[in-house]
């Protein structure tokens, strides 16, 4: 007796074999339908990612487009945010977001890059095995916990330094900087790791010190990866909500351009949405404007991530060419 469906489909004279064959064929057909079905489902889940991003944007538009249609753009990007009187100028919020993010990046980039260099180039193995989990733990701390700590412990410290209040741009930037560090460190570390060993050995062989090698050879080679680390760090910082809301003082003013700028309070776009959405009437103009701010945030992060991933694509392609 042959067990499986034979290749040749010339009918055998033995009836029972044909019976069996038929049965097997119908089993196979059920299986084929099932597989067709499941493979379609898998395909659909892949496609659904595009659909979800589109849906997020559409729902933001649905609730928020009125902000851009009903308020003259000049007013919408005006310098006063005073929702109680119906004045929706989001410029102070944008400035707030930019300042807090810029501060965070100014702190996080040197810290992150140098830590990545330490982990990737200098630290002995046992330290590396210790440092990586610690940084993973930092990535795992909920933002509300860091915000709470910033609010209850860090802000009083900063006030003692002489600022009029502890809830300032600087406080927000400092907390945000630590929150974006895991992103920046891990991506820059990957970028450094991707630099071929031969580059290093070449530089060391002609008598460069370790530091000269890192500075002249490794960092330039890892440049594009580092740029991406910085961009994604910015993306992470600009979208952060709870921590910022707790520690930046939430004053919707444009800070004075003085040397003490960073010790003034500010309010970000994200914090505004979080703080005010609970109090607005659904469908009101204020409600639409808050969604409008969401649209702006969506567009900013979308742009950052699209550009960064395009750069990654180009970089990967470059590496592939090198290998080939």
């Amino acid at each position, binding site marked *: 007796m042959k067990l499986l469906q034979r290749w040749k489909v010339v009918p055998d004279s033995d009836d029972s074999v044909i019976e069996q064959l038929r049965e097997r064929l119908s089993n196979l057909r059920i299986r084929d339908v099932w597989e067709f079905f499941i493979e379609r489902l898998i395909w659909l889940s*892949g496609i659904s990612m595009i659909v979800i991003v589109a849906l997020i944007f559409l729902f933001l538009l649905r*609730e928020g487009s009125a902000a851009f249609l009903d308020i003259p753009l000049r007013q919408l990007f005006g310098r006063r945010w005073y929702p109680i009187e119906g004045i929706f100028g989001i410029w102070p919020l944008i400035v707030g977001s930019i300042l807090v993010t810029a501060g965070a990046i100014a702190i996080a980039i*040197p810290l992150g890059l140098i830590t990545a260099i*330490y982990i990737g180039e200098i630290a002995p193995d046992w330290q590396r095995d210790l440092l990586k989990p610690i940084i993973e733990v930092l990535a*795992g*701390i909920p933002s509300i*916990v860091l915000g709470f700590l910033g609010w209850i412990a860090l802000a009083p410290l900063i006030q003692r330094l002489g600022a009029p209040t502890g809830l300032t741009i600087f406080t927000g930037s400092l907390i945000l900087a630590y929150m974006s560090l895991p992103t920046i460190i891990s991506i820059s570390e990957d970028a450094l790791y991707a630099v071929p060993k031969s580059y290093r050995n070449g530089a060391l062989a002609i008598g460069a010190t370790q530091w000269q090698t890192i500075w002249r050879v490794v960092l330039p080679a890892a440049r594009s990866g580092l740029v991406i680390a910085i961009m994604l760090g910015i993306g992470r910082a600009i979208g952060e909500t709870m921590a910022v809301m707790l520690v930046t003082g939430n004053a919707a003013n444009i800070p004075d351009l003085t040397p003490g700028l960073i010790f003034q309070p500010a309010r970000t776009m994200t914090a505004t949405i979080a703080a005010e959405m609970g109090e607005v009437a659904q469908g009101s103009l204020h409600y639409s404007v808050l969604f409008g701010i969401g649209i702006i945030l969506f567009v900013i992060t*979308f742009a950052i991530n699209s550009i*960064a991933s395009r750069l990654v694509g180009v970089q990967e392609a470059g590496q592939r060419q090198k290998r080939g």
Partner: protein
Amino acid sequence: MSRQQAQKVVVAIITAVAALVVIPIILVIAFIVIQGIGAISWEFLTTMPRNGMREGGIMPAILGTVLLTFGTFIACIPLAIGTAIYLAEYAGENRLTRWVRLAIVNLAGIPSIVYGLFGLGAFVLFMKLGTSIIAGSLTLGIMTLPVVISTAEEAILAVPQRFRVVSLSLGATRWQTIRHQVLPHALPGILTGVILGLSRAAGETAPLLFTVAAFYLPDLPASLFDQTMALPYHLYVISTQVPDMPVSIQYGTALVLLLFVLSLTLVAAIVRTRMRRRREW
């Protein structure tokens, strides 16, 4: 200064900066543990809040977070695994695949508060689910997709190619090969990704604000369509919205949240290493 001296100075500076990154992390954790450990008792974990949340426990918030974490799991698993299989096993190198990947990268980058807005617009209002556990779970589930997808895809790709070839050569179909040779071996990695994603979701506050979280509820939720309290939001509420709040309860809540989230991360790490040890190839 000679080059060798310069080298020494630079290495010292780099080491100092790395310490500046790492030491505060340890301090933060230690600080919360020291300040919060005193508040934690069986009563704190298992009773309802009393006296405007200034006394009693945080049980409803813990329960809410557990429920939401579970809901997130249900909401994100099918799509996440399906997409990971699609990317690792089916997707060709074409424009569609690039779009899917771009969409995932962007999903990962969308601010959590924007997810909150989306959840409000899509689930709470449009689908008329109301502020409810189900709306919150769906919102968190979508937010968690990218983390789970990328770790799951990595885990699937890590299964040796020869198992696929052997399976196909024995007459297995493509899906049978995935089902019997790829997924079982990728499971630990996929699980790690799922738990990691859930630990992120469990600590999120912003997406909960308008989709599920309640300031205070005298009763526990009775169904998926009820609101619930949740640990992160509760921490926010008691640290900023309630006057005369005892500091110990605040730190205690922060510690419970931190432990919940970090223990999930730890579980993920353990799953990863244990399963790796059991591997035979």
